[in-house]
């Protein structure tokens, strides 16, 4: 005979304001098998949990139903409480009467009625719950970091520091990411390279860190503690182990007309190249789209000058497979393409640039050696207009609905640096509003306005028109003065919105992690689990989760590392016991289930059965490996005989829920 306890939570007034919790407790007390039905202000509090524990002991409960918030919030809390009182944790069911009832309904009568039905459904289910025992699965003590920007580097360094092996997979020929392209950083104005390159070197020299540059993740299998990842090492046509990074090949290469990605295409590089002086690994890469040897078979200069013999025109993509216990995603961001913004003349006028292009124009290693000159005629610009929120906070299809977060601050930085270095330059910034919530951020912005006399104008730029004299007409509105402005500018700088890297979406599919509508990875909980994905063993680092500046990125990178280290420290992890199992007596051995299993958890064995007439019969039957099964239940529907069932979500449990709802 079942002895079920029902506990209805008020959640302060979150539930109690729209659901008559007393009536719910009263009604559920009359359900079959229910021996105790109580309500309490905060079931998840220590005293609330005590209430449950005491009832389990005193009433000798065989099942517990908590009517409270979503099981995604506190299912574990109550399972643990039950376990500590000696009840199998899987004999606890949650009725979600907050997110799916009190918060969405306003009428007390109907909300209470619904809460009773939801409670009744949970009671019906718990009647059929069975005690489940978790299995243990070993943890591979190695982490994978996908992306080698500042986020990935920081995460890898922290994990390595804790004593675990870690691999970085970076799609570009060098690690460093966007930070390597940045000139100075806000709000301290220290040089980005000076603080980043030591970290890059540290990563390359750390014995525990392996850097797979010019590589991509090709496939991910497995689950928390035991991922198998296939990494594609793209052919760079240079033997990484032989190349010394002397750079002679890049000097001698006759093909020098390749747009230089590192300088945002503002100057050219050779077909064989090292992205920048401090690249890690400092190894040359041949661009097969431009290399004359690869295209026409005529040249081979680099091969001749390379004393190390590292050039290999026949190199192929190779694949390596490695086991990992934890995976950290650090795929970062890119500025959006501005092709659709004709009003800013980005495609028509070379002197309309993005902020990242401006970084390169101002950088000592940039196309002009650090002198800010107009890309069109290499003249010194005297009037520069900055346009904020290009594609950010945008309602239409062209842009992004979110705030890109970093633009206000880097624009203040740019304005300040220009005014500092070239005091004869007038700088205008058009903004919707200036957002400076960060340590020393507002002070920084105020210095730009007050000390450096940057002209901040609240208003949007309507049209940018290149003129025949080489100047640029910027038509804008000053919202505070209520007037239309025309500025005769030499350069226009667009603060393009940032978006997640394009590789993130296919990666999320491989990792079975969720993304939001903007393709940022979704964290497991927006407040309480900001660096974990909802998929166990997958962690999030940096701008792949949302727009971030450098200090925030580094903080999140270290937090993700801490979470990964926490996982890697364990020798084994507890598996989800809600997995499939096959009733051998009913199984036909037809192989339907095996075909739909995404994990290959089902195998077949020939089993001997004793027949009623005492003869024996050998039949092929399915067998589920509970350590590999993740409990999706695809097999249960593929099985025509109903031999395959899922613990915790069994056919009979779900049908009992259906019955209770429809009653």
């Amino acid at each position, binding site marked *: 005979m079942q002895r079920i306890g029902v506990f209805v939570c008020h959640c302060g007034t979150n539930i109690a304001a729209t659901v008559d919790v007393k009536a719910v407790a009263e009604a559920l007390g009359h359900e079959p098998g229910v021996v105790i039905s109580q309500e309490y202000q905060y079931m998840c509090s220590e005293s609330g949990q005590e209430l449950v524990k005491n009832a389990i002991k005193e009433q000798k409960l065989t099942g517990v139903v908590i009517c409270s918030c979503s099981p995604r919030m506190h299912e574990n809390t109550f399972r643990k409480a039950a376990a500590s009182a000696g009840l199998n944790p899987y004999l606890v069911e949650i009725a979600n009467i907050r997110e799916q009832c009190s918060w969405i309904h306003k009428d007390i009568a109907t909300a209470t009625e619904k809460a009773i039905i939801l409670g009744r459904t949970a009671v019906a289910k718990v009647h059929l719950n069975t005690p489940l025992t978790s299995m243990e699965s070993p943890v591979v003590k190695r982490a994978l970091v996908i992306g080698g920007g500042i986020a990935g580097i920081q995460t890898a360094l922290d994990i390595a520091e804790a004593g675990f092996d870690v691999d970085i997979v970076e799609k570009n020929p060098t690690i460093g990411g966007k930070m390597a392209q940045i000139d100075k950083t806000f709000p301290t104005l220290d040089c980005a390279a000076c603080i980043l390159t030591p970290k890059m070197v540290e990563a390359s020299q750390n014995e525990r860190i392996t850097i797979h540059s010019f590589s991509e993740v090709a496939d991910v299998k497995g689950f928390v503690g035991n991922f198998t990842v296939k990494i594609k090492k793209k052919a760079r046509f240079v033997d990484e182990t032989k190349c010394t990074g002397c750079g002679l090949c890049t000097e001698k290469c006759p093909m020098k007309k390749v747009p230089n990605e590192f300088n945002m295409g503002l100057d050219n590089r050779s077909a064989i190249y090292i992205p920048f002086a401090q690249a890690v690994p400092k190894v040359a890469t041949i661009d097969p789209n431009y290399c004359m040897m690869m295209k026409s078979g005529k040249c081979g200069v680099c091969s001749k000058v390379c004393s190390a013999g590292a050039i290999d025109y026949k190199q192929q993509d190779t694949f390596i497979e490695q086991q990992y216990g934890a995976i950290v995603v650090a795929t970062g961001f890119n500025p959006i393409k501005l092709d659709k913004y004709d009003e800013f003349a980005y495609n028509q006028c070379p002197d309309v640039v993005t902020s990242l292009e401006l970084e390169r124009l101002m950088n000592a290693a940039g196309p002009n050696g650090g002198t800010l000159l107009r890309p069109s005629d290499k003249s010194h610009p005297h009037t520069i207009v900055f346009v904020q929120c290009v594609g950010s906070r945008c309602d239409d299809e062209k842009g992004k609905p979110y705030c890109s977060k970093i633009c206000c601050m880097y624009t203040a930085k740019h304005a300040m640096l220009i005014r500092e270095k070239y005091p004869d330059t007038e700088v205008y910034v058009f903004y919707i509003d200036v957002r400076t919530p960060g340590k020393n951020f507002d002070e920084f912005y105020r210095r730009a306005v007050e000390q450096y006399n940057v002209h901040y104008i609240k208003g949007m730029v309507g049209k940018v028109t290149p003129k025949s004299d080489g100047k640029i007409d910027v038509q804008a509105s000053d919202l505070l003065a209520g007037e239309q402005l025309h500025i005769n500018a030499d350069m226009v700088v667009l603060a393009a919105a940032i978006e997640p890297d394009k590789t993130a979406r296919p990666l999320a599919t491989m990792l079975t992690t969720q993304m939001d509508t903007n393709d940022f990875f979704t964290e497991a909980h927006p407040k309480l689990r900001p660096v974990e994905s909802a998929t166990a063993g997958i962690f999030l680092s940096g701008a792949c989760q949302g727009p971030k500046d450098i200090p925030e990125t580094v903080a999140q990178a270290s937090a993700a590392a801490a979470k990964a280290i926490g996982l890697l420290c364990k020798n084994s992890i507890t598996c989800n016991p809600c997995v499939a199992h096959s009733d051998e007596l009913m199984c036909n051995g037809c192989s339907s289930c095996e075909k*739909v299993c995404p994990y290959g958890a089902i195998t077949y064995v020939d089993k001997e059965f004793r027949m009623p007439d005492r003869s024996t019969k050998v039949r092929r039957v399915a067998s589920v490996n509970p350590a590999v099964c993740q409990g999706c239940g695809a097999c249960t529907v593929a099985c025509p005989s109903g031999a395959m069932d899922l613990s915790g979500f069994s056919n009979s449990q779900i049908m009992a829920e259906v019955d209770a709802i429809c009653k």
Partner: protein
Amino acid sequence: MQVNENFEPVIVAFCCNWCSYAGADLSGTNRLNYPTNVKIIRVPCSCRVNPMFILRAFQKGADGVIICGCHPGDCHYTSGNYFTRRRITLLYSMLDFLGIERDRTRLEWVSAAEGAKFAATMQQFTEDVKALGPNRRLEDLRCRKQ
């Protein structure tokens, strides 16, 4: 058809744990209202939904059944919702072939981020089922409420 203004349909929603159930939670967190007629059953994946469950719901008095899962390509279990899509397409087509009203069944993809879509979907589905009136073509008379 005669529409009974007081008719309150019973609607069973099967939601996958990873996307749609979280989407339903999000519509709660954002206080987005949808009718109380909708009662959610949590399943690990939309591919756990057996056609037997759907028929069972209609038998026991449901007027509409909706299945919600992760968007194709986003399944927590990689491929579960692809199987769901085929199975449920064929099942719904069969129910239609038997003359069961098309609007009593639905499959929607709702991500964990789509709280608003979840609420809007449930609102619309409830209205559609309400317009159809009580389930009479696939009911079990013994289960009819008096």
